[in-house]
């Protein structure tokens, strides 16, 4: 996949997370994986159409989801993976995907995103296309994954 597209997803994460007070978020790894993605426990799927089409899947375990929700709610203690936590992760996914669109618009790619769908449990996600790019991002030393399944539309 085009390096600039991948960089836009990474940049959005690095740009958004500090706004919630996350110190030093970073990109830990980038790899190409097949379309089969083993979920970490929580996955939020956002559809993309425009000059590129596909999906982005934000995946994390419940502990990371609770940690992120806590940051998003100004440090409030989050002990349960409940409706508020799920809503926070959906909201974050929406913000990350929307911010990615802004980065991509700067290189001339116009995209729109759908409402996020959040699922949790034990499952496998099958990406839209055979090649999926996996970005491992860090949050306080824990992993937050961004799976990008996108193709160019002519």
């Amino acid at each position, binding site marked *: 996949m085009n390096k600039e597209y991948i960089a836009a997803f990474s940049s959005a994460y690095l740009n958004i997370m500090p706004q919630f007070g996350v110190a030093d978020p970073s990109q830990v790894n980038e790899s190409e994986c097949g379309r*089969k993605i083993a*979920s970490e426990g929580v*996955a939020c*799927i*956002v*559809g*993309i*159409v425009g000059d590129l*089409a*596909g*999906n982005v*899947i934000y995946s994390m375990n419940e502990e990371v989801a609770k940690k992120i929700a806590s940051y998003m709610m100004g440090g409030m203690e989050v002990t349960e993976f409940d*409706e508020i936590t*799920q*809503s926070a992760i*959906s*909201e974050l996914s929406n913000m990350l995907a*929307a911010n990615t*669109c802004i980065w991509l618009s700067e290189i001339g790619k116009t995209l*729109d*995103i*759908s*409402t*996020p*769908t*959040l*699922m*949790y*449990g*034990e*499952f*496998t*996600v*099958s*990406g*839209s*296309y055979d090649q999926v790019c996996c970005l491992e991002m860090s949050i306080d030393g824990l992993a937050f994954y961004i799976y990008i*399944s996108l193709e160019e539309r002519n």
Partner: protein
Amino acid sequence: MKDIKLVVVDDSPFSVTMISNILEESGFQVVGTANSMAEAVETVAKTKPDIVTMDITMPGGDGIECTKALHIVDPEVKVIIVSSMMDDEIIHCAKKAKIAGYVQKPVDATEITLMINRIMADEELFDELENLYYTAFKEAFTDTCNKFFKAVPEFTEEENKNDVQTSRGLSVVLGIIGKYGGRMILDMSSDTARNIATALLKQDSIPTEQMINVINEISNIVAGNACSWINKKNNLFGLRVAPPTAVYGDSITISKAELNTVTSVKAATTFGEIYMNVGFNRSEQNE
């Protein structure tokens, strides 16, 4: 367009009179006024306006606080912030509080009229989508079943509840993008999915990946046909469908979606039960 009812909220009686006069001269109906947060909540609850104009500085809570209080009494009411100050900070707060628009004082009659008409036109457009979409998806689903399997599904348990769902084993998610965003989910057991794939490909022992491809394709056809039909009714919707993502496993919970309208239905097919859930978001895309 129907008569548009407004409530004017401002701590200054002078501003209330000025704004009310502008609105009435522009053909709108001012059904109430209020000078404080408590009065505003009471007036909105009593008069059920379409739109409230709200001063940003209010005794007993600022305009943003007051808007949140109004949304508790009436989640559908639209609020336009009227303020002499208009900086990025206010606009940022206003967006977070789901404010429909903002105008600067002194209020310009043309500007506020245009804004009110735009807000109401959007409301009507969303109402139109709300009336159309379920029929469109149900018809598209029926039509797809009929074309592929020469059989029509039987629909039961149609609901408008936006609840947490437990997957039957395989869920296909399709994001919908356009004037309003949304998504469709088709959910079924892996046995149902396998039965469908076996019937269509006319072969046994189909690998999981191939089975998912079949269900993805069917889902894509249903959502694509439904959205085309909706767009034909009114091309302002401009709906497009993102490629499908399939999720499968023994334990999948689908979280409650952040959608303003949701319809779900169970379809009994010759291959097993298929659950369809479609919903849209009222807020416009990319706002």
